[in-house]
């Protein structure tokens, strides 16, 4: 959304104009959902966090100073909520169990499933990473944000983002090699 329109939309929401908040939600909900899903790896949890994030947006829009873009601000809220939820519910373990189940039902021999299989491996490797490394890899390489935007969302410098990216990607490669060996064996 062009910045000018975005500022107007924020102003309309602040004034309590009917339909404005819904417009804002519909504009950002899918990307926010993807980020939440990337962290949590679970559709129910991602829905819950995304809803919670927009409730926070609704309550805090009066205090949004516009230092960053609205999307970056929403991503930050989603990332923070996801990390808190992840810590609290220890969904990582549950996800591993779920992935194990999926693994049993998947048919790797079917070439049509190659892309799905690749995504499954990537997601599994991503969920093996420590939270910050997962966050930077997810936002930079799956959501396609710049390192600068990722730094703004996670409140750290671009240098820190790159360090976590490097370490995260290296670990992911090790996990991916391991997972592929597992499939071959």
């Amino acid at each position, binding site marked *: 959304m062009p910045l000018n329109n975005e500022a107007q939309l924020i102003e309309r929401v*602040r004034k309590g104009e009917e339909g404005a908040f819904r417009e804002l939600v519909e504009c950002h909900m899918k990307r926010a959902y993807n980020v939440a899903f990337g962290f949590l790896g679970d*559709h129910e949890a991602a829905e819950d966090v995304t809803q919670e994030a927009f409730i926070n947006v609704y309550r805090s829009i009066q205090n949004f100073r516009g230092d960053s873009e609205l999307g970056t601000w929403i991503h930050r809220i989603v990332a923070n909520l996801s990390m808190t939820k992840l810590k609290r519910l220890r969904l990582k373990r549950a996800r591993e169990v779920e992935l194990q189940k999926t693994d049993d039902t998947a048919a790797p021999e079917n070439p049509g499933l190659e892309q799905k299989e690749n995504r499954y491996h990537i997601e599994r490797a991503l969920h093996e990473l420590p939270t910050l490394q997962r966050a930077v890899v997810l936002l930079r390489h799956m959501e396609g944000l710049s390192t600068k935007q990722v730094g703004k969302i996670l409140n750290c410098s671009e240098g820190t983002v*790159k360090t976590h990216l490097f370490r995260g*990607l290296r670990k992911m490669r090790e996990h*991916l090699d391991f997972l592929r060996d597992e499939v071959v064996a």
Partner: protein
Amino acid sequence: MRHAMVQDNLYDFIDATLDAHLREEISQHLGQCERCAAEFEKMHKTLQSMPAGSWDPAAERPGMFWQQFAEKLERRIREQGQQSESSIVADLREYLRRHSRFAAGFASALALAAVAFFVWTVSGRVDTGPDMQSSSASSSIPVVNAALHARAYDYLDRSKVLLLGFVNVDMEDLQKQSREISREREISRQLARESSELSIALRDPSDRKLKDLVGDLEVILLQIANLDSHYDSPAVEMLKSGVDRKAILLKINLQEIERIGGGNVGAAKQSTSSNKETNEGERP
């Protein structure tokens, strides 16, 4: 070139964000060093396998899910608002039931406020009729501000009930029965939390007085929240003198009068300024 330096810049090298000179140096190093070349290959492969633009878990949810997403969200916001309102009302009802003396005090204060409002309305109609008309004609207050003010006045009402309990407490009774005040402390904590939220939200210059009052109240409420679990006479005395010194209850009454009177606050201020002076003259 050192291996560590190459590895430090490997991500930027692949991301093509390095300056030409450094890029050339790393490129040459990768041609000569197997270890760094293997590292580069691994990193490059990993990035290639990332789904990037094609990764869209949101697309796995049916269209109906997204059509109803905002609707569901709005319903949740409404429900949460109603829940917090009903829990506040229940808290107050329970509080007043347990402290019927405070309820009587509160009722008297309300009656006094009603009388004051009646006197002010009558004088206001005589003196400032045109102002009243213009204020009602320009009543296009944004919905958000109206909601914020409603919330602030609701907060003031609840704070007043609590403070009246402390101001009217009989110190002799206190010494005889060491009564639990955990409920009051809990309500104070809730209200103090609201104070800080309101202080941030009240940014309009026209809300300066309301914001100052919320700030003063926050200090008093935190004092109550931090009292010992039983009535402690010296601490309560200190609290009462704080409420008195800052004329908190008077200021709350003034705000109530301003709320009821809308834009025509001048007359109210004039009629109450003499009360304020009297109150200040009574300071110890």
